[in-house]
Protein backbone atom coordinates (compact mmCIF):
# COMPACT_ATOMS: atom_id res chain seq x y z
CA UNK A 1 0.00 0.00 0.00
CA UNK A 2 1.15 3.51 -0.73
CA UNK A 3 -0.01 7.03 -0.22
CA UNK A 4 0.99 9.31 -3.09
CA UNK A 5 -0.29 12.15 -5.14
CA UNK A 6 0.61 13.30 -8.61
CA UNK A 7 1.09 16.96 -9.46
CA UNK A 8 1.42 18.24 -13.02
CA UNK A 9 4.76 19.99 -13.55
CA UNK A 10 3.40 23.45 -14.37
CA UNK A 11 4.09 26.77 -12.68
CA UNK A 12 0.80 27.20 -10.84
CA UNK A 13 1.21 23.92 -8.95
CA UNK A 14 4.74 24.65 -7.67
CA UNK A 15 3.42 25.95 -4.30
CA UNK A 16 1.55 22.68 -3.87
CA UNK A 17 4.71 20.65 -4.52
CA UNK A 18 6.57 22.75 -1.92
CA UNK A 19 3.70 22.33 0.56
CA UNK A 20 3.65 18.57 0.09
CA UNK A 21 7.43 18.39 0.51
CA UNK A 22 7.14 20.52 3.64
CA UNK A 23 4.64 18.00 4.98
CA UNK A 24 7.27 15.27 4.57
CA UNK A 25 6.32 13.87 1.16
CA UNK A 26 9.11 12.58 -1.05
CA UNK A 27 9.51 13.93 -4.56
CA UNK A 28 10.11 11.89 -7.70
CA UNK A 29 9.61 12.78 -11.34
CA UNK A 30 7.37 10.58 -13.49
CA UNK A 31 6.48 11.71 -17.01
CA UNK A 32 4.76 15.09 -16.88
CA UNK A 33 4.14 14.76 -13.12
CA UNK A 34 5.79 15.04 -9.77
CA UNK A 35 5.01 11.96 -7.72
CA UNK A 36 4.80 12.94 -4.07
CA UNK A 37 4.77 9.92 -1.83
CA UNK A 38 4.23 9.83 1.90
CA UNK A 39 6.47 7.74 4.18
CA UNK A 40 3.55 7.64 6.64
CA UNK A 41 0.21 5.90 6.03
CA UNK A 42 -1.62 9.14 6.83
CA UNK A 43 -0.96 12.76 5.91
CA UNK A 44 -2.46 16.21 6.41
CA UNK A 45 -1.69 19.11 4.08
CA UNK A 46 -2.48 22.57 5.47
CA UNK A 47 -3.14 25.59 3.29
CA UNK A 48 -2.34 28.24 5.90
CA UNK A 49 0.86 30.08 5.06
CA UNK A 50 1.29 28.41 1.65
CA UNK A 51 0.02 31.24 -0.60
CA UNK A 52 -2.00 28.62 -2.49
CA UNK A 53 -5.12 30.31 -3.86
CA UNK A 54 -8.55 28.88 -3.16
CA UNK A 55 -9.26 27.65 -6.70
CA UNK A 56 -5.90 25.91 -6.91
CA UNK A 57 -6.25 24.36 -3.44
CA UNK A 58 -9.54 22.76 -4.34
CA UNK A 59 -7.89 21.37 -7.49
CA UNK A 60 -4.90 20.02 -5.53
CA UNK A 61 -5.67 16.37 -6.32
CA UNK A 62 -6.38 16.92 -10.00
CA UNK A 63 -3.11 15.19 -10.96
CA UNK A 64 -4.21 11.94 -9.35
CA UNK A 65 -4.30 10.22 -5.96
CA UNK A 66 -2.97 6.87 -4.85
CA UNK A 67 -4.78 6.60 -1.52
CA UNK A 68 -8.08 7.86 -0.17
CA UNK A 69 -9.48 11.12 1.15
CA UNK A 70 -10.33 11.29 4.84
CA UNK A 71 -11.44 14.92 4.55
CA UNK A 72 -10.91 17.76 2.09
CA UNK A 73 -11.78 21.26 3.28
CA UNK A 74 -10.78 24.77 2.22
CA UNK A 75 -7.92 24.62 4.78
CA UNK A 76 -6.78 21.00 5.07
CA UNK A 77 -6.48 17.89 2.94
CA UNK A 78 -6.36 14.75 5.07
CA UNK A 79 -5.28 11.64 3.15
CA UNK A 80 -4.55 8.04 4.08
CA UNK A 81 -3.49 4.82 2.41
CA UNK A 82 -6.29 3.00 0.68
CA UNK A 83 -6.99 -0.05 2.85
CA UNK A 84 -8.50 -2.00 -0.06
Amino acid at each position, binding site marked *: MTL*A*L*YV*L*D*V*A*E*FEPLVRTAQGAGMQLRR*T*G*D*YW*ELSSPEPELILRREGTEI*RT*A*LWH*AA*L*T*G*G*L*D*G*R*IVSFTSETIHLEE*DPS
Partner: protein
Amino acid sequence: MASPPPGTPVGQPRLSLDGVDHLAYVTWKPRATLEFYTKVLGMPLVHAITANGWVTEDYPDFVHFFFDMGRGNRIAFFYYFGLPEEGPQGDLMHRSRHLAFHVDTAEELLDWRARLKAHGVRVTTPLAHELIESIYFDDPNGIQLEITRPIREMAEIDARDADLTLRALVDVADSPRPSAQALWQRKAELIRKNEEVSGS
Protein backbone atom coordinates in the same frame (compact mmCIF):
# COMPACT_ATOMS: atom_id res chain seq x y z
CA MET B 1 6.34 11.48 -37.88
CA ALA B 2 4.96 12.98 -34.68
CA SER B 3 1.85 11.36 -33.29
CA PRO B 4 -1.29 13.51 -33.25
CA PRO B 5 -2.09 15.31 -30.00
CA PRO B 6 -4.50 13.59 -27.60
CA GLY B 7 -8.12 14.03 -28.54
CA THR B 8 -7.41 14.39 -32.24
CA PRO B 9 -10.04 12.60 -34.33
CA VAL B 10 -8.47 9.73 -36.23
CA GLY B 11 -9.33 8.24 -39.59
CA GLN B 12 -10.76 11.46 -40.96
CA PRO B 13 -9.55 13.79 -43.68
CA ARG B 14 -8.33 17.22 -42.67
CA LEU B 15 -11.55 18.92 -41.72
CA SER B 16 -11.73 21.43 -38.93
CA LEU B 17 -14.16 23.99 -37.63
CA ASP B 18 -13.09 27.61 -37.70
CA GLY B 19 -14.18 29.12 -34.40
CA VAL B 20 -17.59 30.37 -33.34
CA ASP B 21 -19.90 31.93 -35.92
CA HIS B 22 -22.60 32.73 -33.41
CA LEU B 23 -23.91 31.66 -30.06
CA ALA B 24 -27.67 32.05 -29.50
CA TYR B 25 -29.72 32.82 -26.40
CA VAL B 26 -33.33 33.85 -25.76
CA THR B 27 -34.23 37.22 -24.30
CA TRP B 28 -37.41 38.67 -22.87
CA LYS B 29 -35.71 42.06 -22.38
CA PRO B 30 -34.76 43.44 -25.80
CA ARG B 31 -34.29 47.06 -24.65
CA ALA B 32 -31.96 46.18 -21.76
CA THR B 33 -30.14 43.60 -23.92
CA LEU B 34 -29.55 46.10 -26.73
CA GLU B 35 -28.25 48.74 -24.33
CA PHE B 36 -26.04 46.31 -22.41
CA TYR B 37 -24.33 44.71 -25.38
CA THR B 38 -23.85 47.92 -27.40
CA LYS B 39 -23.18 50.51 -24.69
CA VAL B 40 -21.67 48.54 -21.80
CA LEU B 41 -19.78 45.85 -23.72
CA GLY B 42 -19.29 47.99 -26.84
CA MET B 43 -20.38 45.32 -29.33
CA PRO B 44 -21.80 46.59 -32.61
CA LEU B 45 -25.27 45.39 -33.58
CA VAL B 46 -24.53 43.77 -36.93
CA HIS B 47 -27.65 41.90 -38.06
CA ALA B 48 -31.31 41.40 -37.23
CA ILE B 49 -34.01 39.33 -38.89
CA THR B 50 -37.69 39.31 -38.05
CA ALA B 51 -40.02 36.53 -39.07
CA ASN B 52 -43.55 35.26 -38.92
CA GLY B 53 -43.04 31.87 -37.33
CA TRP B 54 -40.61 29.41 -38.80
CA VAL B 55 -40.20 25.66 -39.18
CA THR B 56 -43.30 24.44 -37.40
CA GLU B 57 -46.80 25.88 -37.23
CA ASP B 58 -46.60 26.65 -33.53
CA TYR B 59 -43.23 28.43 -33.83
CA PRO B 60 -43.78 31.95 -32.46
CA ASP B 61 -43.06 35.12 -34.43
CA PHE B 62 -39.61 36.35 -33.58
CA VAL B 63 -36.76 38.80 -33.88
CA HIS B 64 -33.25 37.35 -34.10
CA PHE B 65 -30.48 39.89 -33.58
CA PHE B 66 -26.72 39.66 -33.55
CA PHE B 67 -23.85 41.53 -31.87
CA ASP B 68 -20.21 41.28 -32.92
CA MET B 69 -18.12 39.84 -30.06
CA GLY B 70 -14.82 40.39 -31.89
CA ARG B 71 -12.73 38.10 -34.13
CA GLY B 72 -15.84 37.75 -36.32
CA ASN B 73 -17.67 35.83 -33.56
CA ARG B 74 -21.23 36.90 -32.83
CA ILE B 75 -23.65 36.56 -29.96
CA ALA B 76 -27.29 36.37 -31.00
CA PHE B 77 -30.61 36.64 -29.20
CA PHE B 78 -34.11 35.50 -30.06
CA TYR B 79 -37.03 37.60 -28.91
CA TYR B 80 -40.28 35.62 -29.28
CA PHE B 81 -43.59 37.47 -29.36
CA GLY B 82 -46.05 36.19 -26.79
CA LEU B 83 -43.71 33.61 -25.25
CA PRO B 84 -44.20 33.33 -21.46
CA GLU B 85 -41.02 34.19 -19.59
CA GLU B 86 -39.09 31.29 -18.09
CA GLY B 87 -38.25 31.37 -14.40
CA PRO B 88 -34.62 31.76 -13.36
CA GLN B 89 -32.44 28.67 -13.47
CA GLY B 90 -30.81 27.32 -10.32
CA ASP B 91 -27.59 28.83 -9.04
CA LEU B 92 -25.37 25.93 -10.09
CA MET B 93 -26.64 25.96 -13.67
CA HIS B 94 -26.41 29.76 -13.72
CA ARG B 95 -22.73 29.58 -12.78
CA SER B 96 -22.03 26.68 -15.09
CA ARG B 97 -23.66 27.89 -18.32
CA HIS B 98 -21.63 30.99 -18.92
CA LEU B 99 -19.85 32.79 -21.71
CA ALA B 100 -16.26 33.99 -21.23
CA PHE B 101 -14.68 36.73 -23.29
CA HIS B 102 -10.93 36.92 -23.74
CA VAL B 103 -8.59 39.83 -23.04
CA ASP B 104 -4.80 39.63 -23.12
CA THR B 105 -3.64 41.44 -19.98
CA ALA B 106 -4.36 42.02 -16.29
CA GLU B 107 -4.61 45.76 -17.04
CA GLU B 108 -7.38 45.19 -19.55
CA LEU B 109 -9.20 42.98 -17.05
CA LEU B 110 -9.12 45.76 -14.44
CA ASP B 111 -10.14 48.36 -17.03
CA TRP B 112 -13.15 46.25 -17.98
CA ARG B 113 -14.06 45.84 -14.31
CA ALA B 114 -13.95 49.64 -13.86
CA ARG B 115 -16.06 50.15 -16.97
CA LEU B 116 -18.69 47.66 -15.84
CA LYS B 117 -18.86 49.27 -12.39
CA ALA B 118 -19.17 52.71 -14.00
CA HIS B 119 -22.26 51.40 -15.82
CA GLY B 120 -23.71 50.10 -12.57
CA VAL B 121 -23.04 46.43 -13.36
CA ARG B 122 -22.32 44.22 -10.35
CA VAL B 123 -19.00 42.53 -11.03
CA THR B 124 -16.73 40.31 -8.94
CA THR B 125 -13.16 41.06 -8.01
CA PRO B 126 -10.62 39.31 -10.26
CA LEU B 127 -10.48 35.61 -9.37
CA ALA B 128 -7.36 33.63 -10.25
CA HIS B 129 -7.95 30.03 -11.32
CA GLU B 130 -5.22 27.64 -12.41
CA LEU B 131 -4.11 29.38 -15.58
CA ILE B 132 -6.59 32.20 -16.04
CA GLU B 133 -7.82 35.19 -14.03
CA SER B 134 -11.45 36.26 -14.44
CA ILE B 135 -14.18 38.67 -13.48
CA TYR B 136 -17.83 37.60 -13.49
CA PHE B 137 -21.06 39.52 -14.05
CA ASP B 138 -24.55 38.99 -15.43
CA ASP B 139 -26.17 40.40 -18.54
CA PRO B 140 -29.74 41.76 -18.21
CA ASN B 141 -31.11 38.29 -19.03
CA GLY B 142 -29.33 36.65 -16.13
CA ILE B 143 -26.76 35.01 -18.41
CA GLN B 144 -23.47 34.79 -16.57
CA LEU B 145 -20.63 36.43 -18.43
CA GLU B 146 -16.93 36.31 -17.69
CA ILE B 147 -13.96 38.27 -18.92
CA THR B 148 -10.74 36.34 -18.57
CA ARG B 149 -7.04 36.81 -19.22
CA PRO B 150 -4.36 34.13 -19.39
CA ILE B 151 -1.93 33.84 -16.46
CA ARG B 152 0.08 31.53 -18.71
CA GLU B 153 -0.59 30.05 -22.13
CA MET B 154 -1.91 26.50 -22.42
CA ALA B 155 0.80 24.11 -23.53
CA GLU B 156 1.16 20.53 -24.78
CA ILE B 157 1.59 19.30 -21.20
CA ASP B 158 -1.93 20.59 -20.42
CA ALA B 159 -3.40 18.64 -23.33
CA ARG B 160 -1.61 15.44 -22.27
CA ASP B 161 -2.89 15.91 -18.70
CA ALA B 162 -6.42 16.60 -19.97
CA ASP B 163 -6.27 13.37 -21.98
CA LEU B 164 -5.52 11.35 -18.83
CA THR B 165 -8.20 13.19 -16.84
CA LEU B 166 -10.86 12.49 -19.45
CA ARG B 167 -9.80 8.85 -19.81
CA ALA B 168 -10.22 8.56 -16.03
CA LEU B 169 -13.54 10.41 -16.13
CA VAL B 170 -15.13 8.23 -18.78
CA ASP B 171 -14.04 5.12 -16.89
CA VAL B 172 -15.43 6.42 -13.60
CA ALA B 173 -18.59 8.03 -15.00
CA ASP B 174 -19.76 4.60 -16.18
CA SER B 175 -19.33 3.10 -12.72
CA PRO B 176 -22.21 2.74 -10.25
CA ARG B 177 -20.96 5.52 -7.94
CA PRO B 178 -18.91 8.12 -9.79
CA SER B 179 -16.94 10.48 -7.56
CA ALA B 180 -14.04 12.93 -7.75
CA GLN B 181 -12.04 10.61 -5.47
CA ALA B 182 -12.60 7.66 -7.81
CA LEU B 183 -11.50 9.81 -10.76
CA TRP B 184 -8.31 10.93 -8.98
CA GLN B 185 -7.53 7.32 -8.02
CA ARG B 186 -8.13 6.11 -11.58
CA LYS B 187 -5.95 8.91 -12.97
CA ALA B 188 -3.10 7.89 -10.67
CA GLU B 189 -3.40 4.34 -12.04
CA LEU B 190 -3.20 5.64 -15.61
CA ILE B 191 -0.10 7.73 -14.79
CA ARG B 192 1.60 4.67 -13.28
CA LYS B 193 0.64 2.56 -16.32
CA ASN B 194 2.16 5.22 -18.59
CA GLU B 195 5.33 5.07 -16.55
CA GLU B 196 5.49 1.27 -16.82
CA VAL B 197 5.06 1.48 -20.60
CA SER B 198 7.66 4.22 -21.05
CA GLY B 199 10.03 2.57 -18.60
CA SER B 200 9.86 -0.92 -20.15
